[in-house]
């Protein structure tokens, strides 16, 4: 019994290693009305992916193609692999995936590729068994974009600092570095607070709020905080409101619409930035269709969607495509997202 299990595992392992990168072509011989394009999110109950499905439905409506979303009921790598297995059995033509755990999906995605199914991924830049991976943006560019929003609110002058979840978090620090580099190149009137150039919020609303209060007490000249973690902007905004600094001190950063609604509406927070999962869902379907049609995928790829009009390969990669798919959430559009 045990031996049999080991043999099975070994076989799976061999399959997993042997199958990647087969048939990068993917052009379908079927007429396009028969294509089935499935998007598998991490978790179909999560608000983020409920929003992504809106993009998939929009794509199906715009193109008349059979595109749909089907995901596990909770964030679980094994359940997600099962969903993909079922889709392969149903004979879909393309699978778009946002993996829970990219490594855990390698075998099943390898199997899909072997069967000639088009596989594209999102938020999985190290996935082996995929044709292409879409990332909404380049980290440094996104940081520069947050900085643009802060600079606009601060009138392009004054002292500012940056806040990250943890100083060890790779993407937060890449955003902050990108923002600081952009400020140095573009906004000479602004200065980075040398004594505290990077503050930690521990991805915690309460800590972001406490750290901001300390900063405002210690550095009365501080005019802005660039947030990166989604907890930074709302936490700092609370401190600004309570301390009576509205209109004098500004914050920008990543933020979910619902969490920031109050502060955006009363003007404490000028703008929150985000990438819209709806657009990512739309872009994934659009990319899968291009491959099915046999169109070449090259640098400068246009998926005919704002933020994804001119996608570039990440340096040194032939699979990872970067867009500039971020959006600004402000007073005017905050109610239109539904997440």
């Amino acid at each position, binding site marked *: 019994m045990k031996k049999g299990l080991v043999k099975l595992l070994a076989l799976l392992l061999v399959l997993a290693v042997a199958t990647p990168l087969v048939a990068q072509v993917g052009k379908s011989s079927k007429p396009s009305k028969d294509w089935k394009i499935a998007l598998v999110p991490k978790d179909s*109950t*999560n*608000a983020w992916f409920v929003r992504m499905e809106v993009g998939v439905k929009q794509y199906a409506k715009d193109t008349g193609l059979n595109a749909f979303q089907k995901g596990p009921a*909770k964030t679980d790598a094994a359940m997600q692999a099962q969903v993909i297995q079922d889709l392969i059995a149903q004979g879909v033509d393309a699978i778009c995936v946002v993996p829970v755990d990219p490594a855990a999906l390698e075998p099943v995605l390898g199997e899909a590729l072997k069967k000639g199914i088009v596989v594209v991924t999102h938020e999985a830049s190290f996935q082996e068994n995929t044709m292409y991976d879409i990332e909404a943006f380049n980290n440094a560019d996104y940081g520069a974009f947050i900085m643009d929003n802060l600079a606009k609110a601060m009138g392009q002058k004054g002292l500012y600092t940056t806040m990250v979840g943890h*100083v060890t978090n790779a993407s937060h620090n890449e955003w902050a570095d990108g923002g600081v580099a952009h400020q140095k190149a573009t906004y000479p009137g602004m200065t980075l607070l040398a*004594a*505290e*150039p*990077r*503050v*930690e919020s521990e991805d*915690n*609303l*309460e800590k972001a709020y*406490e*750290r901001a*209060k*300390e*900063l*405002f*007490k*210690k550095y*009365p000249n501080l005019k802005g905080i660039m947030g990166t973690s989604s907890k930074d902007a709302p936490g700092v905004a609370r401190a600004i409101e*309570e*301390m*009576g*600094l509205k209109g004098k001190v500004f914050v920008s950063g990543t933020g979910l619409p*619902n*969490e920031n609604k109050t502060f955006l509406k009363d003007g404490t927070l000028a703008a929150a930035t985000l990438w819209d999962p709806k657009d990512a869902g739309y872009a994934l379907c659009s990319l899968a269709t291009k491959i099915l049609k046999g169109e070449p995928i090259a640098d400068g790829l246009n998926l005919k969607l704002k933020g994804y009009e001119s996608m570039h390969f990440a340096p040194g990669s032939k699979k990872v495509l970067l867009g500039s798919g971020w959006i600004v959430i402000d007073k005017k559009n905050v109610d239109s997202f539904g997440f």
Partner: protein
Amino acid sequence: MINMRRMAKRSEPYVFGAIVLLCLLIQVQSKQFFTGNNLVDLARSMIVPALFSIGAMMVIVSGGIDVSFPAIASLAMYATDRILLNVNYSGNVMLAYAMAAGFGLAMGAVNALLIGVLRLPTLVVTLGTSSLFTGIMQGALAASESPVPPSILAHGKEKLFTATNTQLGLTSDMPSQILILLGALLLVFLLLRYTMLGRGIYAIGGDEAAARRAGFNVVGVKVFIYCFVGAMAGVTGMVRASMMMNAHPTNLLGMEMTVIAAVVLGGTRVTGGLGTLTGTMLGVALMIILSNSLILIGIPTYWTRVFTGAVIIIGTGVTAWQAGGSGRRLASSGTGL
């Protein structure tokens, strides 16, 4: 007994001295320590850790250790929040506190059963239940950040007064939840000082067999402690949710270490039998002042952990040295207990 308590008291002046030194350092470095709004900010930050530390101190005094209170607080708060949101509750906030206390009590009863009745080791049990309660929250309730009902939101916005910093014109609000902390302190003070139950908590922590022979119902006292601490954790979870105006399922987790460190820093003996509320509050004050003043002192983020660690080691070291010192003095003077 009385001598023991007096001995514990002797470590309090050292913690107090450390706080005074730290405050002076912050004042010199920032000129901002002794301002109304800074003191209000600190009091506000103390509320949740102080509420937790009262329960943690009771458990440690009784000879146990509890690491499950953040998980109990999170699950009690989150379950209450979701139920109230589902029924569109808009009534009094007291019901929310009562429900959270009820959930906390139920979870505390699980600890009480395993520790008090089945006599399993406290650390193992509470590590297990901590994981269990977190699992229920993340699995069964599929917890994610969620808003709070309107009455809790309104309660979160209540303030007792607003302190203004005349130098910089900054203002800070004192949240009404501080009254809950003061109430809990009074209740536990009376319990520990004037009831046989309170005496029992010290007695079983000092020597369980002796306490049993002296006629204390050891199982009963333990069951009471874990149920009470569970209910307090539930209330604390709701305090945090109302102060943040948002129910965050994981944001309290990991706090147990800071809280236990504060309790020990305040002179509570880890092996049980010794500990005071005054010492505990001083320990919490030291930890909170420290973690909320590193920017004011001017320590760069990269060095904050080194600084915090050093203060904890020096602080607990002095406390331990002091306790050892009095023990030696006690032994050499031959007074005994």
